[in-house]
């Protein structure tokens, strides 16, 4: 997927990744928020597909998914939203979803439609390596990167397999750096540096870090070891509280640790 791989740009310096739950305050709001974040320095977007039973998410993203579903958001509205954003920016976008909404749309050329809309990658939270062999082949065919999460408890054997997949897609690894669910945290886990060094020594693909990153100092600490940082619940919560696109852009800039990023 070399020619069309938009991830390369994101990792030229460090990647700054934002997560939004699609449609949490309406689709138009998500589009405006995405563009504001891109202006604020974000160079990779994770678009969350709302699901009724988000077992890996904490309260902020659970509520966002529920609001999005109440507003009638479906996988198809998410795809047309991506298409819309794609008109304005070349920023890489990955869909972040639970498996069931994807499965329900799989038989009607979901991956082709996603590619056409401008989706670059797919992360399926509850479809680990062992269950996604077939999905991987289909993603390879459509040139959509299938992105895996790694966790502090991931064994080195699995880590190597996951890294191999990431290399075949020329994508990256998403390190969920703590136990539990998504949310806003004040500090990194005590063993963060040690874990990151160990992960980096065993992998070739870039590693981005998420789960609880909510202010500049944390982002700076993360980027000392990682190739990118993911901010999610913080932005989702700000949108829930009715923050304007302009303010969201300023928020993104505030967290963006420039001294690390601009090497």
């Amino acid at each position: 997927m070399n020619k069309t791989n938009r991830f390369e740009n994101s990792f030229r310096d460090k990647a700054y990744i934002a997560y939004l739950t699609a449609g949490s305050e309406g689709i138009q709001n998500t589009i405006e928020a995405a563009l504001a974040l891109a202006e604020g320095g974000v160079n990779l977007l994770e678009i969350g597909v709302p699901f009724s039973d988000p077992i890996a998410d904490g309260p902020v993203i659970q509520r966002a998914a529920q609001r999005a579903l109440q507003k009638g958001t479906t996988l198809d509205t998410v795809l047309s939203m991506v298409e819309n954003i794609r008109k304005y920016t070349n920023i890489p976008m990955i869909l972040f979803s639970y498996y069931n909404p994807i499965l329900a749309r799989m038989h009607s050329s979901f991956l082709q439609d996603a590619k056409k809309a401008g989706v670059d990658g797919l992360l399926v939270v509850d479809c680990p390596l062992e269950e996604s062999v077939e999905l991987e082949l289909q993603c390879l065919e459509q040139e959509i990167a299938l992105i895996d999460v790694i966790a502090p408890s991931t064994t080195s054997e699995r880590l190597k397999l996951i890294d191999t997949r990431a290399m075949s897609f020329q994508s990256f690894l998403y390190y969920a750096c703590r136990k539990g669910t998504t949310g806003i945290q004040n500090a990194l886990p005590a063993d963060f540096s040690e874990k990151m060094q160990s992960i980096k020594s065993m992998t070739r693909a870039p590693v981005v870090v998420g789960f609880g990153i909510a202010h500049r100092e944390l982002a700076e600490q993360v980027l000392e070891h990682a190739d990118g940082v993911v901010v999610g619940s913080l932005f989702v919560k700000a949108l829930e509280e009715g923050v304007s696109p302009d303010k969201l852009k300023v928020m993104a800039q505030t967290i963006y640790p420039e001294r690390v990023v601009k090497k």
Partner: protein
Amino acid sequence: MNDYLSTKRGRYGKFGGTFIPELLVAPIQELEKAFNAAKNDKGFMESFYSLLKNYAGRPTPLTEVSRFAEAIQGPRIFLKREDLLHTGAHKLNNALGQCLLAKKMGKTRIIAETGAGQHGVATAAACAHLGLTCVVYMGSIDMERQAPNVLRMQLMGAKVVSVQQGSCTLKDAVNEALRDWAESFTNTHYCLGSALGPHPYPEMVGHFQSCIGEESHAQCTQDLGKNPDYVIACVGGGSNAIGIFSAFLNDPTVHLIGVEAGGHGTQLGEHAARFQANTRGVLHGCYTVVLQDEHGQIAETASISAGLDYPAVGPAHAHLSETKRVDYVAVSDKEALAAFKLLAQTEGIIPALESSHALAYLMKIAPTLEKDKIILVNLSGRGDKDLPQWMKG
């Protein structure tokens, strides 16, 4: 192991699997390893059977209910009396097995989800007896409609956490338990109460519940000299059903019937009859038959019985339905209530509303059955907990 329930990589045919976030992969693999060692460990299984006998009160009897049979113009009917098990339902078999396993694994804290409260009560009892800390997640609506069970759990030292997300019932309690486990697995075991979830849970729960079928099989052989012609059980997640069916799957002369909750209507959201819509999907770790809308969002369910009020069915049942070895049918809230009342009045046995679904289906077909047939119903639990619901009518 019989042909229908042998799993490869946790699959029953195409159903089952391990659809979990990466964070849960390590604890699930740890559990799988421990369970595989334990089920082949004579010492472990002896401790388990000893608990079943001396703490839980196994074996449970088979009771012939001839006045009930007469009232519904049926043939000979026998009940497998899981309602007589300690804590009042079959759930204790599995709770004891898993808590014993957790202890062997060095876990000190147990979490569980509960719908009707029977699995919560069983887990609370097992934890008290084995000296483990117990936290039970329960939907706020279920806490209200099964209030007596909440008090029992609390009395036995469990902390009951009210879940107020989503539909505030069993599915949401499972979500919360999984979230807890993703953070706590180092010292905590998740004691899942039904034959669903990611591998190895469906197999493990089925294993710990297979005593129901083994005993029934031996009792039928001894008392009747033959297998029953029909075995009927209610199916929520499906643990009592898989427990009793497992001993009869390889005898094609035994007609097996699973009864789901038909609720109060046929629209999505008005029932929990998964096999009526028969759509497939992934929920709570496994690929199975699940109630959902066209966009893959999990549907809300409705049933007078909290224990059957769940949108997915265990993967073994999905496979048994697809291979047509078991018939899955549904009865309505009203029909279940009528059966609840009739068994109480004709036999002095108050069945759980869950088990009442199995009886209600039998009431429907009884007049059509030949009089020399033998029917075995798994009376999975007792109905004391359901009196508040009964009062509401």
